[in-house]
């Protein structure tokens, strides 16, 4: 039996091996509970380390493409060490962006004003009907390993974005990265190199982050041996809620409400004194600044300059400093959404579209963790304790 010291954030755990059963404290929302062992990623809230398969995220951010990081996360191999494997992976990823016309038609039938995550979920579900027949092996393991779904989600997000904008989706070009394909659909024009690289970087930073709700939901569903489309539909369902999907919108609204950098301090104090919250602050896992923030702060500065909108960065930076001064003493720090939201906006994405864009990156970590859950071959199922009424009998209807 392994004894684990429970930290308020559970990802501090790192071990050579884990012997089940374990004993831990069990907190609200199952914090402190070990739901899985993983070789995919490590997130250390104390040192601010996030690493994918042992590779610190800072060392790949900006150097590796999202496609390379996805290959690392899912296969566990470095694209440099397995060039042929990576080429095949990338080819499959890109070509799976082509969707059956019926799936496109199903998405296009829906009201473009519907929340994009719901459109994406309907598209993934329809795709599953085309990919897997009733006679196919129910676990769908073969398809899972083909990893088409990562590319398919990217294709669908492009379709949803174009539908929302009332445009046709640009033709899929297999020489084009996932990021360029989506940016083209979001903005309606061919993206420049720097924008494509920036979306790629966002996806690299968002690729895996522990057992967040979409990932954990997919893992539970996968543990029942459901096929990947059932898993991903379930995972996207966990993205439909405002706690997961609405963060970006709140950050942008907050930036729009800013009276100007010189008033940031008063503004923050005003919000806090009225019992309000500062959007883009606070994180379940980190008790220190999210390490990904350092990278995105720098990127927002560059992007804002390129767009000729330096005031966007200045407003964000002033707000971050003002809020940190108030909140850091309480252990509340800036999180990744604080800078990701204005970056998504300057890249041309409507805030409602952000959860979909986020989903493309997170698919890499989700697929990797789900594959581990399948290999682990164990149903995820906790118990509950019954505290309801004692046994009783049904009376006649008239006595109720």
């Amino acid at each position, binding site marked *: 039996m392994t004894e684990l010291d429970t930290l308020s954030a559970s990802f501090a755990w790192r071990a050579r091996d884990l012997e089940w059963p374990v004993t831990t404290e069990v*907190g609200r929302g199952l914090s402190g509970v070990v739901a899985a062992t993983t070789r995919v990623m490590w997130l250390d809230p104390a040192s601010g380390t996030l690493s994918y398969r042992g590779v610190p995220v800072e060392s790949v951010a900006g150097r590796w493409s999202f496609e390379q990081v996805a290959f690392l996360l899912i296969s566990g191999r470095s694209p440099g060490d397995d060039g042929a494997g990576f080429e095949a992976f990338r080819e499959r990823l890109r070509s799976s962006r082509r969707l059956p016309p019926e799936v496109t038609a199903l998405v296009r039938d829906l009201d473009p004003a*519907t929340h994009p995550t719901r459109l994406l979920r309907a598209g993934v579900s329809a795709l599953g009907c085309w990919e897997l027949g009733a006679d196919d092996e129910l676990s769908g393991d073969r398809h899972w390993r083909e990893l088409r779904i990562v590319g398919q989600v990217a294709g669908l997000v492009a379709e949803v974005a174009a539908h929302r904008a009332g445009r046709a989706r640009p033709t899929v070009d297999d020489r084009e990265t996932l990021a360029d394909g989506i940016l083209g659909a979001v903005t309606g024009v061919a993206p420049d190199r720097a924008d494509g690289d920036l979306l790629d970087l966002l996806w690299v930073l968002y690729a895996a982050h522990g057992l967040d709700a979409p990932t954990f939901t997919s893992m539970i569903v996968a543990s029942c041996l*459901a096929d990947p489309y059932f898993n991903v539909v379930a995972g996207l369902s966990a993205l439909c809620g405002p706690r997961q999907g609405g963060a970006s919108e709140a950050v942008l609204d907050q930036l729009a409400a800013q009276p100007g950098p010189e008033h940031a301090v008063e503004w923050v104090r005003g919000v806090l004194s009225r019992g309000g919250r500062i959007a883009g602050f606070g994180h379940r896992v980190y008790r220190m600044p999210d390490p990904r923030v350092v990278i995105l702060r720098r990127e927002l500065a560059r992007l804002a300059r390129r767009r000729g909108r330096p005031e966007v960065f200045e407003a964000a930076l002033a707000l971050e400093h003002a809020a940190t001064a108030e909140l850091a003493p309480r252990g509340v720090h800036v999180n990744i959404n604080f800078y990701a939201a204005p970056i998504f906006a300057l890249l041309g994405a409507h805030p409602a579209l952000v959860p979909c864009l986020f989903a493309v990156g997170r698919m890499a970590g989700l697929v990797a963790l789900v594959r581990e859950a399948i290999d682990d071959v164990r149903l995820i199922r906790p118990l509950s304790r019954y505290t309801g009424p004692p046994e009783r009998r049904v009376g006649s209807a008239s006595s109720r």
Partner: protein
Amino acid sequence: MIGIAAPASPQRYGRGLDGLVAGDTRIAELDGVAGRLLYRGYPIGDLVAHCSFEEVSYLVLNGELPSPDRLEAWRSELVRWRRPPDRAIEALARLPRRAHPLAQYRTMLTVAACHIPEAEDSSLDAQWRRPARILSWTSALAAAAIRHLEGAPPVGPSDELGFAANFLLQSLGRTPTAAEVRAFDASLIVQAEHGLHAAAFAALVVISTGADLGSAVLAGIGALSGARHGGANQLAFEMMAGLADPDQARLWARAALARGQRFPGFGHRVYRCPDPRVRALEPIAEELLSRRGLSERWQVYLALRDEVERALGPRGIFANVDSITGLIYHPIGLPATAFPIPFCLAIQTGWMAHCLEYLPDGAMIEPGAVYLDR
């Protein structure tokens, strides 16, 4: 699920959260030793004998059986939502017939979810307005998916019929007999809730993010679709359908037992004893099969059950609910590939009840993982 264990309480558990008590619930009591299942204190056998699915769904969701007034209000609320958005049914035309019926059903639900009222309202009041709509929309969409299997067009609802009868009308395209309605209603009742199984847990994780109740149900359906969870009623029926008579069933079972084969529809993680849902449904299935002149099929089931339980019962393996529901669905005329769908219709009641129980102070469910260095 309520009253999640206080932070300072350590627990010991295994892989897959095995043995972890995630929280308290006031909905169902499962007794895996004595073989009892109670909803809100009422044994399911009692509910099958005295109540309709409408009453039981009200009980599971609200905690008490409805007074006549409340039952009337709940019934009319269910009837009010019997017409799902046309788009959701039209989506079927965009899907290949060879797709799994549960996947087609799922797709209709995802399309319907693009047309729900107050979609982004995750207040508790809005969530409580959802169960009636979800139960009735899914019933109509499930029926359309089942008819699509045969290439038949959807059938409209009848507002005069109860939940079970209307579902059968819309699935079969004919008015069901009283015996069929009673049997199907009983199958809905005994499968309306089953504690915090994997699908209910998946639904809880989704609701804990602030998503709408329909999104939670979709996650539950995903878990249920898996071979390890919900597809077993179809497999169990197909296994029995391949056996011509009781003698063949016995011989085949003995040979399969000798090979160490596993039997779909037998064994359960909770029940190490006869499954209470089986005991509640057996007399109903037997009567329905005999009315249909299908008594031979009942004899095959008994022969198989006795043979397997004699060999494996001492190890705690008994027929579970998946072995018996097919013997109700089949004589009614539902196709075997569609069997997981009526299970979904029933069990989502329990998922919704768990979600609504969790919501008032529900923290986001986000457990951790241990990173292995090697």
